[in-house]
Every structure is written in structure tokens, then in C-alpha cells.
């Protein structure tokens, strides 16, 4: 299992478009991906889970990847968030 903390910088938080981008990015790696936000653990491959968490701009989240290609997956997820999630 690998994990890292990161701050969400895009302007609207994790709304529909960034959530779609995030799921498309991490799904192909095969490992389980979770996001810990405000003490809640979210299945980061589920759009329903990700959206209903209402992750706001500027909040800190922890991404955990567990399983196949976990390191590559975490790296890709962090790079996407740091690039502003398509904004």
C-alpha cells in the first residue's frame, strides 16, 4: 500500500468534470484507490462516492493505492491533481 497527502487547488473543488477525469485516470491501473477526506474513506473509483463527498477547493486529501501497479497509480493521481484537474 502506498499513500500521499495532497491539497486540491482547482477552483470548484471535486465536482463533476474533475471527478470524471480522476476516475478515468486511476481506473486502468487495477489497484484499489481510496481518498480520505474529513475522516471519511471514499472509494475513489466510484463517481457517486466521490461526488457525494463534496470535496471543496483547498482541502487536503489523502490518496491510498493498494494492489496492482499501486505506485504508478499514485504517481499519476498526484500529477493530475497537481496539474489542476483539467482547469
Amino acid at each position: 500500500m502506498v499513500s500521499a497527502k495532497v491539497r486540491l487547488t482547482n477552483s470548484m473543488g471535486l465536482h463533476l468534470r474533475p471527478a470524471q477525469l480522476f476516475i478515468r485516470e486511476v481506473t486502468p491501473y487495477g489497484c484499489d484507490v481510496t481518498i480520505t477526506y474529513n475522516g471519511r474513506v471514499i472509494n475513489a473509483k466510484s463517481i457517486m462516492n466521490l461526488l457525494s463527498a463534496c470535496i471543496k477547493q483547498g482541502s487536503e486529501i489523502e490518496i491510498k493505492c493498494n494492489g496492482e501497479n499501486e505506485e504508478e497509480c499514485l504517481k499519476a493521481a498526484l500529477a493530475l491533481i497537481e496539474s489542476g484537474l483539467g482547469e
Partner: protein
Amino acid sequence: MLYGVGASAGIGIGKILCIQEQNLDYTAVEYQGAKAESARLKAAADAFCEITERMAQDVRERIGQKESEILMGQVMMLQDPLVTEQMEEMIAAGSCAEAALDTICQGYIELFSNLDDELMQQRAADIQDMRTRMLQLLLHAQSIDLTLAPKGTVVAAKDLTPSMTVGLKKENISAIVTQVGGKTSHAAILARALEIPAVLGVANLFEQIENGQTAIIDGGKGEVLVCPDEKTLGEYTKQQQEQWRQKELLFIYRDKQTQDADGRSYDLYANIGSVSEAQAALENGAEGIGLFRTEFLFMNRSSAPTEQEQFETYTAVSRIMQGKEVIIRTLDVGGDKEIAYLNMPKEQNPFLGWRAIRYCLEQTDVFKTQLRALLRASAVNGNVKIMLPLVTDVQEVRAAKALLEQCKQELKAQGIPYDEDISVGVMMETPAAALIADLLAKEADFFSIGTNDLTQYTMAADRGNAKIKGLYSTFHPAVLRSISHIIKAAKREGIPVGMCGEAAADPLLIPLLLAFGLDEFSVSVSSVLQTRKWISGWTQRQTEQIEREAMAFSTANEVEEYLMKHSVR
């Protein structure tokens, strides 16, 4: 007449197409075993994804990325591993595919509707749309296909779902009416993006309309007229055509420079009376503000606005205009504009009385507050100019400038920034000012001709008095000579000269004004583009000929008749 929220401006006329909610009852569906139900669900889901991806593709090309992503979001929601797992669990436990889908979707609709985040609440509508369309597929029910709607359709629906956007084509859909939704709803944003007139949130909509009825939708006012009579229909059709014409002008002339047919450039500004009008001016292609009336700041209140309040208003307009010139007229009270707390005495002849600059030069506390606010605002973008109304005497300009100088010294002592070179101009609107234009031009940094008052004072005719309506005419040789004289005096002193009265947008007068050498035309926001078009039609040779011939007539009627024949084509 039905009333709702005017969500997308414009007039739409057409025949109503009611989109009612379908009966998607599945209680009669029999459970055929987990394997069969699961297979049915999967087949429907595959079809759903294929159809929706096609829709998203079409919407991306026609409307935009954002709308397309909303549809792709539905695909992702249906393919969500958790959602799939939950539905499969229900099917395994004995639910048919429809029940599994419906129950799980309803759960998520409730979850999202109750989130404390407006953006996320909107996702409930996406899940609702997905649920309806999946049930249609599972039950082999007819889906709503707006792509087949004939030209001139007024869509009437409970709400506009994301999947309906596919069929919304401006060519066929004249207007949209819904029972729910407000100015910021998805339907409103979409209607505005597509420029389809829309009235949303009409209560009990379907009890008041029927399929096939003719309806007029006024998306600006939020009104729906069902089965209008011939006369009303004619009036709205005319209004609609005028709006289309304006739009066309907007399209052609908004980003063009203001030039005559020879390529000579002019400044085309707008007259405004509030901050919100500045935004409209910019959107309508105005190159600056030629007259910002400041009276509104002083009206409908019980005491004068503070320096800070005024500073914020002037700065707001200056910011909106993005560095383009903003000419602000100092307080023009008196005459027909009464303000109770300023304690102006009742006068026999208010139009010839203690008003405008005359008042300000005596009530120096009021005037200096405004001047300080103007000076402070001038530091922000460096695009603010001051204009003095109703000047009749050089001494008035000197006195105003002396007060301005005092204000500058005070600000300097306080370390507050201002534009040291702020321009001070004179509004040319009295016969006295016209006759001493050469003298005023030596003191002023610019002129702006106010034709409404100039005409009224030159002709000694109240423009509100019907009995002498005929005398109030800007075509009168006395008024035209005054205008010509003012412009020539400005030219001789090398200062710019503009016009901020209604005459600047009069197609009959534009060739004359061009020939006189006017530099700047300041017109109402709605006339900017039309004026740009009119200016673009004239060559110098043509306007000089019109000047020669028109100025040779003796009466206002003769001039007007001549210009009617030669100015408009």
C-alpha cells in the same frame, strides 16, 4: 397570461409541444431469475451507454464541452462499480431489473438532493434523467425525441433534462417553458447558451396549456401568452423581428471600429446613468462612456452620498470600461430634477434658475465631495474625465477648476493618489456657451455638445410643451449653426469635441455632424451599433455636399425635408 422566471431573454413564438412525464410503472414485470434479470439490466445499460455517448458527441459539437460532460457523467454513474454491485445484490435477492435500478437510483437521488452543496444537488437531476431513460429502455417505452420537433416548436416540460438538450436546436425550438427551475438552473444556463427564449418555473403549467396551442414567450419579462389574438401576435412578431435585427447588428458591428466609408475613425461612446448600464455599453461595443449622469447617486435617499460611496461607483464604471475613456458629468440638479434634501428653493423658472454648475459652485461642500471622489477614481485606471454641466460663463470653468485644485492639494497632503492631469471639459448646452465657444475652448480640455438642452434654450421652447412642439427642433438653422460653430471653435483650439444628446444617433443629422468635424458620438446603449452602421456609410465628399446644401435652407422644416431625402438610404 402565465408568469414565470424570465431565464433567457428574447421573444419566441410557436406551437406548444407538451412533454409530460411518462408512466413507467413496472409492477407488472415478472422476475425471471437472477441470471435473466442481470442480463436484461446489462443489455439496457449497454444500449444506454451507446446512445448517451452519441448524444454527448452531438452536444459537444453543437453546444459545448460542459453540456457534453454532464451526459458522459450519466454513463459513468451507471457504470459506477458500487452502483453495479448494489443493483446486482438486489437482483440476486429477487428484484427485477427495473426495481433494482429504480430503488438504487432513488437512493442516490435522495442522497444528492440533501447535500449541502448546490453544484452537487444538481447531480440529482442527472441521476433522475438516467433513471427515466434506463426504465424506458427496460420497459421498451417510447423515449422523448426532440430532434423530431418541427420548426416553430415551443417546448413545455416539467423540467429540462440533460438528455433533452440533444434535441434543442435553435432552428426548430422557438422557446422553452418549464414548471420548475430558476435563473441559475441548468435549463436556464442552457437556454441562454443556445439563445432560445425561456420562461421557467411557471406554476401549474400543464393545467393551463394544451398541445398545439399557439404561444408567445417573452423570455425577458417572464411572460407566456397562450392563444393570443391577431393584433397581439402581430405586435410581438414585430418586436421579435426588431430583436433579430439588433442581434444581426451586434454580430456584424460589435467588434468593428467606428469608421466612415473613407476609413476615417471616430469615437463612439455611450450615455449611461448607472453602473449596470456600463456593462451593457461594453457588451454593445461602446468604445467609452461619453456621458455618465451622476444624479442617480443622489436620488431616492435622504442625504447626499458620501465621498467613499461615490468613489466606489465611479471606480466601478472605470473598471468595467477597462481603461476606455469615461466622461463623468458633475451633479446636474435643478430644472426637472428635484432632490429634497439639497434644499433647493421653488423657483418660477427652474430651467433658467439655480441649478447644475450654478448650484455646485455655491454649495461647495457637495461639489468638493464629488470632485474628491472623481479625483480618487481617476487614479485607478487613469481613464476618468470630468464634465461641467450648464456652463454659460468662462468664470464658472475657472471657479470649478480652482475648487478642483484645492481638492488635489488636500488629497496630496493626505497622501491619497489621483490623476494629476485629469481632464476637465464643458458640456455645451446653452446659447451663451455656444457664442463664446472660442473663449471656453481656451479653458476647457474638451467639449461635449448636449443637444437636448441646447435646442431647448436656443429655441426658447420647452420640449415638454405640446403647444410649441414644432419649435423644438434640432434641425432649426439656429441650432445647427450653433453646433457647427462649437465644433469649429474646438478644432481651432485643438481640443476634442463630442456630442452626447439624442441628435448624435439621428441618422438625418449624422452626415452633417461628420461634415462639421465632430470627433466623438455618445449615444444611448441601444443605439451604439446602429450609429456605427450609419457612420460607416458616408464618404467625406457626400457629407460635405449635404452640409453645403442643408445649411443653405432657411427653416427647420426645409432642412428636415431635405435631410429626409438625402440622409437616409
